[in-house]
């Protein structure tokens, strides 16, 4: 069953006198439980596509259906609420809230979902345990390495029980060891919780783990391969 169905997506930026066509008619379906990498050269439109799939941006043209909800029909407040309950984010630069500890960062999204304190505290510790960083629960992002911060970001993304997780170049700032560990964690989450992951990446190691690789160039999908058995 498709949880994301993007049809005829165009995105044009008009920030300068010359309009920039970032996406030129993208059609994409993502099934539940997929571990998909969107790859392509810089400026190919990966991040734009991810932003649109994640409801952070809206297409100039085309429809984006997430489990039958057309994101274009949602107001800005509804969109924020939609993201809160349906989409998890892992960013390239970790983007944790710097003044909150690892546990508080993980709990924060559950607090926004109005989950009772006891329950969210327990869940946050479980998730930090799952990503192997429970011992650093009381550390703030500034006291954690890049790899550790990204693990917290994964825990935070999973905390809201999203329909899918969007990860934009999640390994770009990590060393090999941290990258492998993070990928292993995400793959484990995918297997264990059947979480749907969509990555934008240049990283071959991520591509090697992906079940499906969608290649994009000049704002168009030019390749879509599925790898059974990964």
């Amino acid at each position, binding site marked *: 069953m498709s949880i994301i169905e993007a049809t005829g997506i165009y995105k044009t930026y008009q920030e300068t006198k010359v309009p920039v066509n970032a996406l030129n008619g993208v059609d994409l379906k993502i099934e539940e439980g997929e571990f998909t990498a969107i790859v392509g050269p810089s400026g190919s439109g990966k991040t734009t596509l991810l*932003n649109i799939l*994640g409801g*952070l*941006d809206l297409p100039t043209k085309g429809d984006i259906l997430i489990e039958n909800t057309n994101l274009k029909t949602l107001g800005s*407040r509804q969109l*924020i*609420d939609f*993201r*809160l*309950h349906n989409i998890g*984010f892992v*960013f390239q630069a970790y*983007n*944790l*809230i*710097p*003044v*909150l500890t690892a546990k*508080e960062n993980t709990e*924060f*999204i559950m*607090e*926004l*979902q109005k989950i009772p304190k006891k329950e969210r505290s327990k869940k946050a510790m479980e998730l930090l345990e799952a990503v192997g960083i429970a011992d650093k629960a009381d550390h703030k992002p500034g006291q954690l390495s890049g790899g550790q911060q990204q693990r917290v970001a994964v825990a*935070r993304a999973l905390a*809201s029980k999203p329909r899918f997780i969007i990860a934009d170049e999640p390994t770009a700032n990590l060393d090999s060891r941290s990258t492998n560990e993070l990928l292993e964690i995400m793959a484990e989450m995918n297997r264990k919780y059947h979480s749907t992951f969509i990555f934008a990446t240049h990283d071959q190691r991520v591509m090697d783990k992906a079940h499906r690789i969608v290649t994009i160039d000049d704002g168009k999908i030019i390749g879509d391969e599925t790898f059974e058995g990964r």
Partner: protein
Amino acid sequence: MKTLIKIAWRNLWRNRRRTILTASAVVLALFLALIMRSMQFGSYEQMIRAGVNQTGDLQVHDTGYWANQSIDRAFFYRKKLGETLHGIKEIKSILPGLQTFSLASYKKQTKGVLISGIDAAVYNKQNHLSNKIIRGKYLNPNKNEVLLGDKLAEFLKMHVGDTLVLLGQGYRGITAYGIYRVAGIFHLPSIEMNSEIVYMNLKTAQNFVYPYQPGLLTSLSVFIKDPGQLQTVKTETEHRIGPNYEVITWKTMLSDILQTIKADNVSGQIMLLILYIIAAFGIFSTVLMMTMEKRRQYAIMVSIGMEREKLVWVSIFETFIISVIGIVIGLILASPIIYYLHFHPIPITGEMAKMYLQFNIAPVLPFSIKAHIFLSQTIIILVLSLLSALYPIIYLSKFNVLKAFRH
């Protein structure tokens, strides 16, 4: 909400030095504003007190006297009236007075004067008139004598011991006349008073104006225990003494002093405005920097599902916390100083001191400890701070998440 406050609090202490500097701007502004206003209001209170010592907090007249100050609007003191006034527990003391206009002559000189009949002992207790005598002696309550201002004595070419002739209109159309020995010559700060007033004992004045019935008065000056209760006491007095009498407060009688205070207050307010602007810019620049610095943090929060309104609250809490820290420290620093200077006013010396004394004002700079000074300054600083939060409120309500991510 607890988490939002926690985020705001921690955000502030991420840049400890900046927060301390901003709070210091609030402390300084509030401290200076409190000291300035307290000193200013202290002086005003002192001026008003000096004026009220002359007039009383309230005056009771025959109805219509204040608008038309004629001797024909005088009234006879009745025991019942006195008992009624003394029956009001907020009233401390009552000072009867009789004022009328007359011609004063000595040899070939004649001048229009204001006759003021006073209870010499009580009046002196209240106004220290005996200290203003520059020649001769203060009034003897048992003698038909007068005190002249130095300017009037100079005009009439009179000296202590000379006899003054008074001729004027008495009560109910009679002619008032009399001759009185000059007991002393006084000097008051007001040229007008020095050249116009003739003081005499109340009984002497009553005999001068209407010798056929004792007890004629134009006013009863009423002194109250708590000046803050002025309006209440006025209303109660009016209610009790009935419509045959009018009750006037010092605010009407000393309207010229109030005008002076009002004008002076404007200059104080301009100084305060400058202080407020400095403080507001201090807070605003911090709020601006914090907003710009945290654009990425805001973008993260909105992207993961935090409503913009909650971010606005974080920003308001940040500004509020800085302001409250500044206000609390400002109050802690300023209050003991103001309290000390209220009970131990700064003494004024030299020519300035002489001038104060001439106006019957103690030569000190008193500080007011009225709660409204502390309250108003605190509220103004708080409101200014919260106004500074308008910028992040506007920014947060419309910032572009993706653009903010790029910063």
